Structures are given as structure tokens and as C-alpha cells.
């Protein structure tokens, strides 16, 4: 694997993590967290842990995002924090 590409993905993971913490819109945070999970899934796949990548893609990027969106739908979209 090209290390520059890995580095860019790792950098994006960190950026997404901070952005998900900082953003005021909780729906946006959920989407950012989904992106974070998907990039983590790419990293797992690069490292050869395909089973982990599969779990991350289905649980992290898929279902948990739906759960976050459902929770935002039932509560409030703006974060007061």
C-alpha cells in the first residue's frame, strides 16, 4: 500500500473525529462520525484485517449512523454544549 494514501486517510480520520466533536449540528456530527467509521474501515482493510473492516463498515458506518439519526430525530438537532 502507498504510505502517502494511508497517511491521508489517517489524517482525515483525526480531522473527522475533531470535527464531530466541534460541530454544533448533531445531525452533522452523526454524518461526520459515519465518515470517521468508513475511513477506519478503509484503514482496517489496508492493514489486512478484512473481518474487522467488514464489521466496522456494517456496524460503525451503517447501523450506528441510523441509530444516531433516530436519536437526533427524537431529541434535538442543536447541541447546547
Amino acid at each position: 500500500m502507498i504510505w502517502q494514501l494511508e497517511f491521508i486517510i489517517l489524517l482525515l480520520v483525526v480531522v473527522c473525529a475533531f470535527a464531530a466533536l466541534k460541530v454544533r449540528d448533531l445531525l452533522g456530527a452523526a454524518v461526520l462520525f459515519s465518515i470517521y467509521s468508513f475511513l477506519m474501515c478503509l484503514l482496517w482493510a489496508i492493514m489486512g484485517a478484512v473481518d474487522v473492516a467488514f464489521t466496522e463498515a456494517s456496524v460503525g458506518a451503517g447501523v450506528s449512523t441510523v441509530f444516531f439519526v433516530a436519536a437526533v430525530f427524537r431529541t434535538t438537532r442543536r447541541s447546547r454544549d
Partner: protein
Amino acid sequence: MKRLGLLAVILFGALLVYGTTDFPDWGDPSSPAATHLSPYYIQHSLHDTAVPNIVTAVLADYRGYDTMFETAVIFTAGLACLFLLRVFITPKETEASGLYRHRATGITLRIGQGGRLPLGTREFERIDSQWVPYDLIIRTACSLVLPFIQLFALYVVAHGHHSPGGGFQGGVIFGAALILFAISHNLRTTLKAMPEKRTNILTGTGVLIYVGTGVLCLLLGGQFLDYAALAGLLGVDPVMARSHGILIVEIGVAIAVMAVMVSLYYNLASAGHMDEGL
């Protein structure tokens, strides 16, 4: 307080990063795990269990005890969310707010408590308080892909022996298919197809299949979760019995995970009322 928290996080984060410098390098062949444990699995797993995917063999056979409790953890987490979110007493306000829409004219009726529909339910349809218009494209597209997603989920469960996948992933994908159905249609339609009671029973069933397999091995004279003991029952040699035993517990895991995912979605999307939602 916030600054103190940030300071603590930075301090312990730095400590954790410092701790990773003691780790063996990624893919280091001389690390303890690679010198003692991994070679055994790589050399013996196919011979022992007839499963080409070593990850599945380790997860469900050699480390089957861990996976059993992982399933129990998922079961407990689902149970905890159910107790936290589910509202067992329906408040009068939501009970009264049965909104019905006349199909032909689009007039919405609000049926109060103890009220009944004037013309029967065929002319009227129950709608959510935040009503979203019927969308043909979304419903048709989702209905079209749903069978394929479910088929793929079953494939992931059944083909975990040969390719990445297994009970957890397959169960999540199957649950995601049902959640997609709930999103594209509405929660009430999904609750009719997959009642809440059924998800709760299936959650327990999945864990019971796993534990039951272990107990069955025990009863047949083997050790707990030693699938080779099932050889006589399945009519195959002990090596294939371990392969089949893995499949049986994977199916148990898949059922439990699928049911927990759907139950979690129901509770989150309807805020525990099970009447209307996302």
C-alpha cells in the same frame, strides 16, 4: 472544570501514545503473538476444523467461549436499552392522537380517545403526527433492493467459513435491511411484519442457540463448546462436526444481533412508544 478535563485527556492520551512505543511493530514476525500463538492457528486450523478462514475458526471454535459472552453482552445491551427507552404505559395524549388521512381527498381526521373510525380503515390510513407524503420512488427502490440485502446477509452468515463475515456482520446487515424497510415505509408497517415481541423472543433465541450448542456438547460427553462431540449427532466425522458447529453458533449470533439491532431501532425511532417514528 472544562480546562481540567482537557488537561486530563491530553495527559492520559500522551501516556497512551507513549505506551504504544513498547508494542511490537505491526506485522513483526518476532512478536510474542506471532511466535507462539499464530503459527499454531495457521498450521492447524484447517486440519482441526476444516474451516479455511482462520479468523472464523479462532472466533467461533478456539475462542468460542469469548464469542459466547460477546453475544451475551449484545443481549444485555439490548435488554438495557429496552428497559431505558421503552415506555410501557401509554400516556393519554398519544393514545388520543390517532391521526387518520382519507386516501382520496387527503383530509386528516383526529380520532380522540375511545373514538372510532366512521367508514372503516380501508378508506382511511393511519398517519404519523409528522406526516411525510407517500414517495413512490423511495418505496419502490427500497423494496427492490431489500431482498438482495437480505440474501447477502444470509450469504455472509453462511459463507463465513470461506470469506470475511460471519454471524455478527450478517446479523447486522439483516437488521439493517429491516431498518431500511422501516425508513422507506413507516414504523407501523414494519411492526406488523416484525412485531416487537418477536424481536425480543429472537434475541433470547439467538443466545440460547449458542449456549444450547455448548451444553449439548457437554451432554454428549465432550467439553463445553467442543463441537467435535456433535459428530455422532450430525452424522459426520469430528473435523466436519467442528465446522458445522461453527455454523450453528454463527446462526445463533446472527439471530441475536439482528433482533437486537431492530429492537434498538424501534425503541430509538419511536422514543419507546412503538406507535410512530422515523
